[in-house]
């Protein structure tokens, strides 16, 4: 059984590697992050730390896309049926997909964060930012498993991360408990300081676990 799960993870990794969109996402995200850090740093308006945080906030779009693609790429054209014929255990399949995502996302996040900080001229690399990027992609993974469509999942996650959260944050301090804003406390101090970095990490992880649980329950119950 254990070797079986490893083979499923290996298969998922091959799928991700051979999906042209995945290397494109990784490459583009790192390049755009470094480019933005260069442009914003040259403008010299913000401190290097602010520039790094700002471009990392943009870079989360790449991780959201990676999380969504890991799941939802299978729903266009119907490879999901082939996949389920090969691996009927839906929980095992989700675990393997998530593992494959994490195996790619962790080095991807580390490179992105290091690139952002180096180019912006910030010394030291916040590990919290790396954890945040991996987690935000895991959240997108769960949303994609629930809605089963690349564009729909992408629209929901991007609107949350780039429009709804920042706007709600100006209105109510409870917005600090939204998954992305709570997680962002791991690398970005924010006024008013409702959560510590540790608490922020826990809140975001709780969101990810709950959504993943719901998504896996739905995936196990319904027709593919």
């Amino acid at each position, binding site marked *: 059984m254990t070797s079986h799960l490893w083979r499923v993870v290996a298969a998922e990794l091959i799928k991700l590697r051979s999906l042209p*969109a995945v290397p494109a996402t990784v490459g583009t995200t790192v390049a755009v992050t470094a480019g*933005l850090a260069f*442009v*914003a740093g*040259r*403008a010299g*308006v913000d401190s290097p730390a602010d520039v790094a945080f*700002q471009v990392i906030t*943009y870079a989360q*779009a790449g991780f959201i*896309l990676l999380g969504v693609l890991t799941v939802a790429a299978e*729903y*266009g*054209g*119907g490879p999901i*049926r082939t996949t389920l014929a090969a691996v009927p255990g839906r929980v095992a399949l989700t675990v393997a997909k998530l593992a494959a995502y994490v195996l790619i996302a962790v080095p991807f996040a580390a490179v992105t964060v290091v690139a952002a900080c180096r180019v912006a001229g910030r010394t030291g690399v916040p590990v919290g930012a790396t954890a945040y990027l991996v987690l935000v992609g895991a959240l997108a993974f769960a949303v994609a498993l629930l809605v089963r*469509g*690349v*564009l*729909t999942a*992408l*629209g929901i996650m*991007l*609107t949350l991360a*780039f*429009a*709804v959260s*920042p*706007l*709600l944050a*100006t*209105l*109510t301090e409870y917005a600090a408990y939204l998954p992305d804003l709570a997680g962002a406390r791991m690398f970005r101090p924010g006024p008013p300081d409702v959560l510590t970095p540790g608490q922020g990490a826990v809140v975001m992880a709780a969101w990810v676990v709950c959504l993943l649980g719901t998504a896996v329950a739905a995936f196990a119950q319904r027709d593919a």
Partner: protein
Amino acid sequence: MRVVAAEFRKLLTLPSALVAIGFTVAAMPGLAAQTASQIAARLDAGGPEVVGTVSTLNVGFYLVPFAVIGPIVLGIVLAGSEYTRGNRDTDGGRQITASLTAVPARGTLLMAKASVLVVLSGVLAAVVVPATIWLTQTVLGEHGHTWDELAGTLGWRVAGAVAYWVLMSLLAFAVTLVARSGIVPMIFFVVNSSMVSFSFLLTRATPLAKYLPDVAGTQMFSPDYPAEGMLGPVPGGLVMLAWTAGLLAVAALVLTRRDA
């Protein structure tokens, strides 16, 4: 006309399009009313009349550049849904092949889609923007402004906001048609409509950034754009119109020339 009717039906039966419309209709007035009630509470307590950069005058208006995400998503799904692969029940086929079988004249198809988008995002803007202004002024109550005051400061800006939403949705539509996939346009346009956009970042790096379509178009309605040396409302609108026309022309050229 029948092609336009068909495109209306196709768009309005897409769940993503309905979500985008619902999000715009609910979120913009809702968030703005919430801000207005905070300003009113602060004024009652004798505080300042601004929350951040939001005042009693522009509270109905400050969400225009963010809520444009709704029309943008409409433009993207209108084009992108044609190119999404179906499931095995449809042999993994894409809707564009069926659409082009039904309407072989590709220019006509493009015109019909663009008309549907102009009408929908135009109506959406013309309803949501004034409704938000009315709602926030009602919430402000005694701290609100008279209609004459509002018409004096916001009057033409409402028309500018409507034009901005329509042109933005057309831009997203044109880019998606060229890309034949909604993924990249979705990321680019939604992220760019966020609190601090790429284009805004570029205005700090180069003065040429004022000619970018969204930066130029924002001048049609923004009373307090946070950068110096921007174009005026009319030149800004014309620059955005030129970008839109240019990108639609490119989309038309590619759509008519290449294999679907």
